């Protein structure tokens, strides 16, 4: 029984980070109707950046985090301007836009493979092996740090969405783009901010994940997949739902990996996804209007 509780705790801690980067996927997905297939690759790039900064210059991942957020925000805005805006202007069919992002994901992943090879890198910060013991439960220091960071950042994002003018404009664009435009909101600017914010959150998850995960070029693909399942589970465009969904998926993955194997955990996550599509495509907090999920 004790190892199940241990697995659940580990799942919650990991799930917080799943929730964090899933928020980064659910916002642009909800606002622009475009799922970012390269999401996991941005997490991978951020993990590598934090690894190299630590390995070459001894920069602690938590210090890198302060640079990572604005840096990845800028990357996101750049990609939105260069790729998505152009495709929207050309009135590209949706499959073409999705494939373009898939191409970006393929490029980033093979770029990493090309440069850093099929090798596992471990970011051995001083607190990597540190643990806290609560009764029989052992909590890894980096995991706890990651969870706290994820909660703080998620709360900041929600405060941004609820309290600031730009955040409110973003929500308005999500609810009804045309009405928001009539109210004087420039939806293209909102698209840029939204996509930038999403990539920034992927970048923010990177240093936390790097402190207890191994860093390798193909680490991003599974993260993208997990983020998609989490986003559907927690309702498109809903940051609270994404965070909660992230923890649920984290627990499922951790517990099943503990009692069976990670491959079975993956099959279970896929089963959850298919069942969701079948019976509750609107997710935990959504409603369905005549087949259209929103």
């Amino acid at each position: 029984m004790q190892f199940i509780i241990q697995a659940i705790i580990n799942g919650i801690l990991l799930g917080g980070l799943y929730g964090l980067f899933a928020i980064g996927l659910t916002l642009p997905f909800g606002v622009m109707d475009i799922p970012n297939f390269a999401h996991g690759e941005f997490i991978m790039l951020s993990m590598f950046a934090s690894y190299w900064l630590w390995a070459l210059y001894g920069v602690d991942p938590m210090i890198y985090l302060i640079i990572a957020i604005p840096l990845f925000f800028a990357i996101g805005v750049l990609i939105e301007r260069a790729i998505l805006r152009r495709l929207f202007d050309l009135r590209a069919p949706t499959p073409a836009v999705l494939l373009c992002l898939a191409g970006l994901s393929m490029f980033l992943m093979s770029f990493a493979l090309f440069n850093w090879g099929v090798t596992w890198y471990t970011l051995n910060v001083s607190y990597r092996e540190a643990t806290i013991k609560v009764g029989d439960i052992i909590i890894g220091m980096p995991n706890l740090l990651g969870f706290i960071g994820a909660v703080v950042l998620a709360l900041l994002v929600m405060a941004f969405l609820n309290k600031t003018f730009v955040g409110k404009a973003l929500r308005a664009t999500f609810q009804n783009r045309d009405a928001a435009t009539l109210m004087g909101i420039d939806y293209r600017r909102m698209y840029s901010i939204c996509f930038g914010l999403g990539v920034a959150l992927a970048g923010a998850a990177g240093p936390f994940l790097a402190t207890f995960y191994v860093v390798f070029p193909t680490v991003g693909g599974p993260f993208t997949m997990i983020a998609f399942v989490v986003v559907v589970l927690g309702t498109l465009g809903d940051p609270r739902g994404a965070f909660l969904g992230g923890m649920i998926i984290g627990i499922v993955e951790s517990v099943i990996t503990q009692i069976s194997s990670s491959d079975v955990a993956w099959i279970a996550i896929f089963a959850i996804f298919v069942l969701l599509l079948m019976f509750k495509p609107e997710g935990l907090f959504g409603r369905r209007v005549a087949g259209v999920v929103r």
Partner: protein
Amino acid sequence: MRLGGANLRRGTWIAAIIALALIPPLFRREDLLHWMNLMFFLAALGSAWNIICGYGGQLSLGHGAFFAVGAYTSTLLWMWYGITPLLGMFIGAALALPMALMIGYPAFRLRGTYFTLGSLALGSVVYRIIVYLKPITQGNVGIPLWFTADPFYLQFPSEIGYYYVFLAALLITTYVSLRVKNSWIGYYLFAIGNDQDAAESLGVDSRKIKLYALLISAFLTAILGTLYAQWKCYIDPDATCSTDFSIQIAMIGIIGGLGTLFGPVVGAAVMIAAQALSVSFFGAVRGGVYMVYGILLMGIILIRPTGIMGVFENALAAVRVLRRE
């Protein structure tokens, strides 16, 4: 018999097929035939993908799953029970159908990109299942097939035999794709791809039509999986159902233009050229080829979201207008 219209078109087809069939005896070069085989094979894959994605506008990034089921089923049946892949490929293709239903049935009810997400997830879960069933499938190591050079097992002593197999595969997929395009399924698919609401208001059951198209597409893709296994004599999850491979299938379709008949052939040729170029630039370093594919895919979509074939079609249309004037 009047020359013109349908007869002329049929004549062109027959002439083209005869010309293609004459290539191996005229040019007895294994390397040339190998590239031709690769092109026919990729074009057939793109053509099968096109049935659901090009005509129906439903982007699949998980066709590798159907491909892998075809390749693994026929191979395992052959290696374990001695069943010839000639029969095994149909069993594999039949197994691909419930998989297609598993994603298509729930996802086609929904609007938006759910099918794309589902197909992507399907590809990755098939990958994990193959890895998990290691005692049967040898996991990531892959299965080396026997090489018998016996046509009864779909294997041939030289590339010439495979040439006719892949030519036939390409012709059959193109024929099926043409038949689908010009049947009620094709018309409904185009209508759904253009404006789903309008199509549904006219009584089109969009979910059923998309499912038909997906099933046909998955069936053909699985058969191509078996042909690939018998040709390469080696299968592993990376080459059959990785996300990269699924995107590669989609690339063939989109480079040649969505929903066009000959687009996949153009797409396959471009892919092979890109592959050759990247090998000469980067050597065989892992990631090199897919880096080039990624740039190519983004570049083509950013320049022409409808694919290269769109350029040709515009040119043809311009010529026709000029002639008329």
